[in-house]
Structures are given as structure tokens and as C-alpha cells.
């Protein structure tokens, strides 16, 4: 569910909290999001494991016992691996908002840092799925005019952080095509 505004009870003040990612240092994702990341990863890889198990049993055509073991074991192993992957993904995501724009860091083995200048944010979405809503989280998606990295999204933010980011990013006048009004036929 995507919302553009929602009344909240607790809002961050404009004073910059050095612990928060806004104007401060690199901020991790919310603690409450850890379970969501881990669970989501476990589910995905478990389903992949199930599909692989089905394909293997169909191809190899073993006996009943081996087939059942395969069908039971592969998804379980997949779930465990996915849990670990999801947790690590949650652990190694950092974000911040500074004078240059929004920055997002992901990963430990495959590292990636993305920077979106404030002036380039055309519009943004604040999304909250049912699980996120129950835990007070939100997903922020920034849209730019770019073609390869036109959409930058980060999930698992605390709702207060996400709304503060939205307010700050939408405050500065963003114009991706700065001379859109200067055309003459």
C-alpha cells in the first residue's frame, strides 16, 4: 500500500540527532526489520529449494524414500541459507542523508554505494505492507529521471525515519530536467 502522507504520533524534530542517518553518520536499518529480512530470505530460498527438489526427483526418478528425503531436506536447507542471507543483508545496509543527497550502502562481499542528489529526486513513494505496518516500518522508494538506476529503494526503515526523509527530500525543489521550461519551438 502506498501512501503519500499519514498522521503520526511521534515525529523527529528538526534538530539533527547524530545517531540518526539524517545529517549524521551512516545509520543501520531498524531492528524490527531484521526478522522480516530473514524470514523473507528464508521463504524465497526455501521455495527455490522446493522447486529444485521437484525438478531433481522428476529427472533422477529415485525411490520413494530418497525422493521424500530430498523433497523435505532441500527446502529446509534452503530456508536456513535464506535466513542467513536475509540477516546479513539487513546487517550490512546503511543509509544517510547529508548535504549532498541520499546515500545507501549495501553488502559486505559485493559492496555498493548509491548516491541520489536531492535535486534529482523527482518523486518518492512511502510504501508499507501489512507486515511492515505491524512493526512500524516503511519502505522508501526514490524516483529519478535516470534510466539505469532510476529507482532507488530501501526497505526496513523505521517509520519516523522514512517520514523524516520524505519531508526533507521533498522540501528542496527537485527538477531533474532543469531547463524543461526554457524551450522555444
Amino acid at each position: 500500500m502506498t501512501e503519500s502522507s499519514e498522521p503520526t504520533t511521534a515525529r523527529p524534530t528538526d534538530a539533527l540527532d547524530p545517531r540518526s542517518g539524517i545529517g549524521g553518520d551512516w545509520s543501520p536499518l531498524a531492528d524490527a526489520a531484521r526478522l522480516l529480512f530473514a524470514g523473507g530470505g528464508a521463504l524465497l530460498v526455501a521455495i527455490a529449494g522446493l522447486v529444485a527438489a521437484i525438478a531433481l526427483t522428476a529427472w533422477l526418478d529415485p525411490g520413494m524414500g530418497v525422493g521424500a528425503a530430498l523433497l523435505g531436506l532441500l527446502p529446509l536447507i534452503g530456508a536456513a541459507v535464506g535466513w542467513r542471507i536475509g540477516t546479513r543483508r539487513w546487517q550490512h545496509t546503511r543509509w544517510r542523508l547529508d548535504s549532498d543527497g541520499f546515500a545507501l550502502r549495501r553488502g559486505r562481499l559485493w559492496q555498493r554505494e548509491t548516491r541520489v542528489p536531492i535535486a534529482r529526486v523527482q518523486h518518492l513513494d512511502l510504501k508499507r505492507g501489512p507486515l511492515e505496518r505491524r512493526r512500524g516500518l516503511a519502505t522508501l522508494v526514490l524516483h529519478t529521471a535516470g534510466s539505469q538506476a532510476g529507482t532507488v529503494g530501501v526497505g526496513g526503515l523505521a517509520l519516523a525515519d522514512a517520514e523524516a526523509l520524505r519531508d526533507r527530500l521533498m522540501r528542496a525543489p527537485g527538477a531533474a530536467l532543469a531547463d524543461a521550461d526554457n524551450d522555444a519551438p
Partner: protein
Amino acid sequence: MRPEAPATSQGGAGIAPERRLHPWSWLFTLLQQLKQFALPLLILLFTGRGDGNELWPLIGVAALVVVSLLRYFTYRYRIEADRLVIREGWLQRSRREVPFARIHNVALDQSLLHRLFGVAEVRLESAGGKKPEAQMRVLRLDQALALEALVRGRSSRAAPASAETEDLLLLQLPPAEVLKLGLLSDRGLVLAVAGFAALSQFSPRLLPNVVEMFGRRILGWIDLHSASPTRYTLGALAVVLAAVIGLRLLSVLLAWLQYHGFSLRESTTGRLTVERGLLTRWRSSAPRGRIQAWTLREGLLHRWLRRRALQVDTAVSDPGNASRALKEIAPIATPAACDALIEHLLPDAGWRALDWQPLHRGSAWRIAIPGVAFGLVLTTAATWRFGSLGLLALLWLPWAIVSALAHARRAGFACNDRLVAVRGGWWSRHWRFAEIAALQTLRLSRTPLDRRLGTATLMLDTTGTSALGPPLRIRFVSEPTLADLFARLSRQLGQLR
């Protein structure tokens, strides 16, 4: 023939006359709608089975004719003091008002058929619109020109209405250059492949039949019974050569049709317009400031003929009509002319004085990885299929390594206050650059291998990039250098407002 001035309303004293489209516009609307069904309809008509089934398409065509006629009869437009009012429709009536100030581009299209009838299709586009604000198919040529002049006069903020004579001619391609363009391009191959693919949908035996026919004809000159291996090879080579020459001739023909009379002009307001075409005249234009990124290409054939090609990405306001956007501003030009054009369009950006930085030393073997992997896979497959003869495929490996070394030597990047540029390639060289002010998102990434070797990859995003061109991406460069560049660019972009 001077365009007649259309009558306009004088501030409320009398309504402006209602005008209608050209009497033959129903034909053009019909043709436009038929274009989508043209090929299948033709195939059906020509390969019809002879039973009653071939009459069904005609009913569809008849319905389209009726719709087009209806549109002609119900379309009315009026030119008022500050806007255009269009009424159309019979069952579903619509009335649209287009203020002149909102119109940012007037496009006139004339195909050969249009020119035969003396008409033109007029499109009025606004900035940021997905579809044209108004599309008139078709108007009489003098009326179309008058409308275009009127709209330009009413919506331009600058004074000159006679902008045509003050346009600066930046590039013009004489016929010899268009010929060279045809020789250099592989449009013929692309078209032939597409044509075969399309026709094969309807006649699956078409491609094998054609190949067989040609092969038999050419090889029939060689008496197969008494042919030695050398004559057989010669015959095969002759077939291949004939195919290549035929495709190049097709390319030349296509280039002649599409790029004849190519001209690039710049108006006093900084608007670039490209006009080209022999039978159908294409005209696309964009303000200079809308250019997001540039690609300069030099293929192997380009180098032999001492030419290059310059393309730009523009921020397209109508993604569905991307083919009409300004893309090729110099399809073929000498290297000096290309540099001069870039210097003219990017004054004081220092294009010629860029300081190119090389890749991190020892990156050649990383560039070779995909080639070597492909060679190994090829060898495995060939050996599995052909036995020990397949080991000849190992010859791919030294080639991949040589190619990677050459790529690594030529690749590089450069960055000054206004531009950031990447260059690469070996046989087919390219330079890709953009103004820093046009960059969108920046991304610095490192794979585990990057982290071990101390390099990184910097990707710079711009608007309107096509998936086919080289990306604006700096790879295999030492990490501290790229991190500095990353910080510098993000600081510069952060100061934009």
C-alpha cells in the same frame, strides 16, 4: 507559393471560421491504421487459400474505411486569438482547447504520398506530454505552414518569427557522404534479418528455400561431380561474398532513402533540428539543453574511411515516439568535424583538452575473463561433439587475451569541471561522455575481486539512455581515485538546486 494567413478572431468581434481537414485525409487516416495490419493483410491476400476465408480481412478494411470517413466528417478546428479549439467525434464528442503558449514543438511530416497530394501532417507537442496535444492528419500544405508559423509566432517569447533564415547550419551531408554512410552501416543486414524473420512467420520454409535456391544456382556453375575441395571452397566463398555485397548494397540503398539531404541546424534560441530523408522527410528537433549524454563511435570501417559518428541521448518527453527524438546529430563526419561540433555545442567544456586516465595496471586479465571462459566452453563443446578436432577451438584463447590487452591499453576515463567521459573499445572504439550537470544517480560498487585488487566500478546514470549503447561506467580503476571522483561528483551535484 506563399502561405495564406489564416483568419483569426479579433478579440471577440465574431467567431473564427471553423475549418476542416483536407478532403483526402480519410485516405491518410486509413493508411495509418492499416500500417499495423499491412504485412499480414498482404500475405493473406497473396497466399489466400481460395476459399471464403480471404474475404474476412476485407470486412475489417471496410470498417476502417468507414471509421476514417467518419473522422474526416466530424473533425473541426478553429484558430482563436490565443488557442486552438478542436472538436471531433460523432457518438463520442470531444472538444479540446490547446493554448498556443503550451505548445513547445510543431512538427510537420510529409511522406511521398503526402507530397503527391500536396498535404502535410501536423503535430503539436507540448513539453512533458505523452501524446501530441493535437494531431491533424492531414492539412493542405499552405495551411499547415501557416498554422506552424502562427503557432511559432504566438508562443515564442523571443521576437524573431522568421527563424528559418537565421538558423545556423552545423552539418550537411553531400551525396558522397551518404554513400559512405551506407557502406559503413549494417542496416542492410538488420533489415534482411528482420524481413526474413517476419516472412518466416507465414511461410516457415521460406528461408531454407531461398538459401537452397541461391546455393544451387551459384554452385551449379561448379560441376559438383568433378569438383575438387578447392573449387568447392571457392564456391562457398563466392556465396558468402555475394551475400555480403548484396547486404551492403541494401545498406547503401537504405542510407540513401533515410539520410539523403541530411542537415543539422541550430536556431538562435539554441534549438537543434535535423532534417533528412529522400521520399519521406523526417524532421526532429530538441533544445540543446535537453541533450543528456553523448556517444562518439568509430568502428573499424569508420577508421578506414576516416570518419566517426556522433549520437546523443535526449530527454524524451514522449517515450512512445522515441524514434522521432533527436538521436543522430552527425551520422558520419570527419573526426575533426565531430570535435568541432562538440566544441560548438559544449563551449568551454574542454572536450579536446581532456586528461585521459588509464585503467588500473593489470586489468587486462580481468577483461579477458569472459573471452577465456567462452573459449573454454567452446572447446569443451567442440571436443565433445567433434572429438580431438575440437581442440582447434583453443585458438580462441590467445585471441581473447590479445583482444583484452588491446582493450585495456585503450580504455580510460577523464573528468574535468564540466564533463565526465569514458572511452573504450579496440576495433570498434567509442567515447561516451556527459555534462556533470546532467548526471542523475551515482553508484560506486566493488565485487570481491575488486576488493582484493583494490579497484572499483563507478556507474553514472543519465536520462534517455538506450540499452544498446555503451554505458557511462568506469571500471577497473583504482579505488581511491574513484572514491575521490565519487565524492567530488556528489558534492557538485549536491550543490544543484
